[in-house]
């Protein structure tokens, strides 16, 4: 009972300290939140983007005796009205250049695409003075760049079509076959259809695309939402760093009590000194546990983080608690007073956190191999490994190696620290 009373008293004091609450919960959530807002909202699991408003003026006409069935301008225009882009492009037709420019000026639309009257004729005749004009709102950057890319791709496709026709003609003639000019429109039509379909599929139907990126996650949600996975790693990095900070900071309560005189007073009561130390260690466990629970819940509900399978999460979390408390007890056992404690906590834990990879957890491709090797000697590095596996959807069985290594490190650190405290106080 006395052990529990000491632990509850320490917890009460911790949760009444604005600094402790700030470092336990507010700081990790705030840092993760900053990254979250920097990369956009993902609470629903979707990456949404404001639709690009595009005004199109298509003055292009099919020249007489053209080999094409429709003018190139029609193909360019149709890209912006295609069903597949409706979720992110809002296109509308304008009668002439003046009216579409006025719409841009009034910020009714973000980008204007102006296809000149004789675009098809001049482009097919190889004259380079003809061009599709793109006018954009100067305050925008992404929208105009996307529209420009789309127009360039279509025009390049048409140029590619021309090259394809020339190649077919040359090959036929080289083989002594006289090409039939009436077949050219059907060749162009087939090529155009293929090219338009290819472009559409490339960007909107990953299954048909040339290159398909598949994340190695077992969880379908994460495959569909790689940014959520990145937030998970960010949150894990913050959570581990601040869990270790909290472990050490809570353990500093023994130094604070020493300075306040209450530790000496505790020793004058009929309470075994070992029990006093156990009570204080228990408070550190509770604090790190509560902090972790709050951060995981906040990460789930505020940032949509999928922590992984419950058993795997439990293992990663337990390892984190044991390691954070173990390192806290060890570090503070070397510290003489709270003045020394500040730099040890601030400097020591930041360096260990960096070497353990906590601040670079979400860098795509990871850090150089040397960092991974160093991480193997640091408890934070092993805690991170466990959490990475949990986030990737690994089963609890797969986490056993990092789990056992982490808790072994934690228990050894705890034992050394507790021994030093006993020597000092008991």
């Amino acid at each position, binding site marked *: 009972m*006395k052990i529990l009373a000491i632990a509850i*008293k320490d917890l*009460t004091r911790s949760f009444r300290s604005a600094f402790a609450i700030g470092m336990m919960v507010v700081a990790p959530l705030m840092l993760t939140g900053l990254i979250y807002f920097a990369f956009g909202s993902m609470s629903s699991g979707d990456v949404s983007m404001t639709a690009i408003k595009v005004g199109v003026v298509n003055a292009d006409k099919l020249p007489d005796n053209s080999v094409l069935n429709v003018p190139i301008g029609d193909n360019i225009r149709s890209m912006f009205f295609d069903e597949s882009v409706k979720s992110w492009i809002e296109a509308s037709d304008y009668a002439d250049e003046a009216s579409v420019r006025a719409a841009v000026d009034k910020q009714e639309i973000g980008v204007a695409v102006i296809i000149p009257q004789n675009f098809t004729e001049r482009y097919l005749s190889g004259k380079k003075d003809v061009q599709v004009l793109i006018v954009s709102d100067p305050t925008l950057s992404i929208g105009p760049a996307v529209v420009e890319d789309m127009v360039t791709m279509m025009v390049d496709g048409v140029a590619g079509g021309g090259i394809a026709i020339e190649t077919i003609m040359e090959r036929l003639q080289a083989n002594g076959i006289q090409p039939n000019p009436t077949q050219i429109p059907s060749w162009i039509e087939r090529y155009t259809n293929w090219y338009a379909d290819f472009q559409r599929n490339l960007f909107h139907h990953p299954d048909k695309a040339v290159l398909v990126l598949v994340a190695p996650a077992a969880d379908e949600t994460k495959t569909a939402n790689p940014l959520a996975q990145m937030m998970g790693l960010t949150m894990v990095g913050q959570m581990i760093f601040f869990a270790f900070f909290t472990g050490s900071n809570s353990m500093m309560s023994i130094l604070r009590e020493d300075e306040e*005189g209450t530790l000496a*007073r505790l020793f*004058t009561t009929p309470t*075994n000194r070992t029990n006093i130390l156990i009570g204080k260690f228990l408070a550190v466990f509770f604090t790190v546990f509560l902090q972790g629970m709050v951060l995981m819940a906040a990460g789930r509900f505020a940032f949509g983080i999928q922590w992984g399978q419950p058993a795997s999460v439990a293992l990663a979390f337990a390892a984190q608690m044991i390691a954070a408390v173990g390192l806290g007890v060890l570090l503070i056992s070397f510290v003489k007073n709270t003045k020394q404690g500040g730099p040890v906590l601030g400097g020591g834990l930041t360096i260990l956190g960096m070497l353990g990879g906590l601040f670079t957890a979400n860098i795509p491709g990871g850090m150089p191999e040397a960092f991974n090797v160093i991480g193997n000697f640091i408890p934070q590095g092993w805690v991170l490994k466990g959490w990475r596996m949990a986030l990737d959807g690994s089963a609890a069985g797969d986490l056993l190696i990092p789990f056992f290594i982490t808790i072994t490190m934690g228990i050894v650190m705890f034992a050394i620290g507790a021994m030093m405290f006993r020597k000092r106080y008991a």
Partner: protein
Amino acid sequence: MNAIEVKNLKKSFGDFQAVQDATFSANAGEVLSLLGPNGAGKSTTISMLSGLLTPTGGDASIMGHSVTKEPELAKASLGVVPQDIALYPDLSARENLVFWGKMYGLRGAALKSRVDEVLEIIGLTDRQKDHVGKFSGGMKRRVNIGAALLHKPDVIIMDEPTVGIDPQSRRHILDNVKELNRQGMTVLYTTHYMEEAAELSNHIAIMDKGRVIAYGSHDELIKMVGQETRIDVTLNAEAEKILDAWRATEGVARIDSLDGKITALVDDSNRVLPRLFDAASKHGVRITSVDIQEPNLETVFLHLTGRALRD
């Protein structure tokens, strides 16, 4: 059975002997004061009695329980009021008392009612929900005492509880000590204020340089110096010019000089003082002030050590 029994208690820190063969006792229900200047070894002695320090030699017992062999039992009979405030500033007065009560094994309704009683005793019932950190020095001192009373200990140790507080709070604490003693509690009170020791104590142990140099009741200690009166004199010249002449003056038992002030113990100030003035005139020294004090604990300390208690 003595409530407090101290026999040949020793404590050394390396080569430094903080307490040397301290021996004294206190009967149940009495107030025993440990009187001595700063560094005399009072706090080290009570640290050993309260189980904070392990004696290097000797032993002590509280209500018959040896502090070295049965420390838990000895501590259970003991309430300790530390010299400095030892409370949690971010907990309320009530939360502090509840916590310390639990440390002495109190639980449930008994704890609640005892905390209410103690709040009443220390006069802080109406401020019980306020954080101790917001209290004045005197109020903190009262909570500091209250925390030691929760388990109704047989013996209470108070280590200089009136240091650095206002006269009103000091009076409140002294009255509390008397009231606790009236209720049957044995009090071991350390102080370097002889007035407090004189007012409160049944017995007084005077400590200096780690040793108990005198032990007895107030009257017994005064008798040690007979009827000697203390005379403090300041001069307009160096003390050395007159010191030897005054030492040879009839009726002067002892004479010392410190920081320009001469302190003499004399058997009858009415007879001796004119002789001192005569001698001063003959040596061309002018006396600028004279302070005469009847025999008291200060005189006893001076008689035993040659130094004033507050030096």
